């Protein structure tokens, strides 16, 4: 098989914020894949009983891991809103350049608002965590 070019080749494009929203969707998706790992680790710990969950909680309540939760919340909010934008595109709407620029800003604005909301809620929930 002949070597294929890398696609999308990140270093050859002129910077555009529509490009940034696109690659961010990919990065946040990868982050959420790692988040799924964390979720299943926690579910398995709960299934393992009170002792197993307490052992896992020692790891899951480390300050560094709490930072990871923050990053995952940001990734989730962004990926959710950007994903909905993709679903709208799939119906053939909003593909004109001006519309795509506008929706890029809309995605950033709405997802930041959602991040603040969920982040604050998670902060309150975190205070109840062991």
């Amino acid at each position, binding site marked *: *098989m002949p*070597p294929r070019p*890398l*696609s*999308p080749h990140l270093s050859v494009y002129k910077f555009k914020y529509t490009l940034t929203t696109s690659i961010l969707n*990919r990065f946040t*998706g*990868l982050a*959420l*894949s790692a988040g*799924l*790992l964390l*979720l*299943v680790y926690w*579910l*398995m710990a*709960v*299934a*393992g*009983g*009170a*002792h197993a*969950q*307490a052992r896992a*909680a020692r790891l899951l309540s480390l300050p560094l891991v709490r930072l990871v939760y923050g990053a995952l919340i940001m990734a*989730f909010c962004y990926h*959710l809103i950007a*994903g*909905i934008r*993709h*679903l709208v595109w*799939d119906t053939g709407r909003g593909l004109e350049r001006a519309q795509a620029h506008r929706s890029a800003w809309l995605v950033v604005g709405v997802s930041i608002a959602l991040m603040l909301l*969920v982040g604050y*809620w*998670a902060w*309150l*929930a975190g205070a*109840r*965590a*062991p």
Partner: protein
Amino acid sequence: MSLRSPLGRVLGAGSAKRGVHHWWMQRLTSVALVPLSIWFVVSLLSLPSFDHATVVAWMAGSWTALLLILLVLTCAWHSQLGVRVVVEDYVQGAGARTVTLVSLMFAHTLIAAAGVFAVLKVAFGAAP
């Protein structure tokens, strides 16, 4: 009339009729994940506490268990489809790409099975 070249027909390297499947499944899983993931975040953050008894009581609820299983399965499927495209885009060399893709598929299968197993174990009251 076939649009395929004679060489293509002899080699049998034509369309496998499955080109749209990956794209379509990525869309379907994303549509399903919009309500599922919002439910999960709201439900998890509404828990009064995260000690074992509270979490077990939550997970053992029939609807919670069912939705958690659907969430884990749909997430794993969506993640597998997404990560696969990233690997196909950026991992060079047929050998390395194949090994990476197969490893990721095994990893996603393991994650999905572990998640379903854990929820079922708690839901059926087998968590000590």
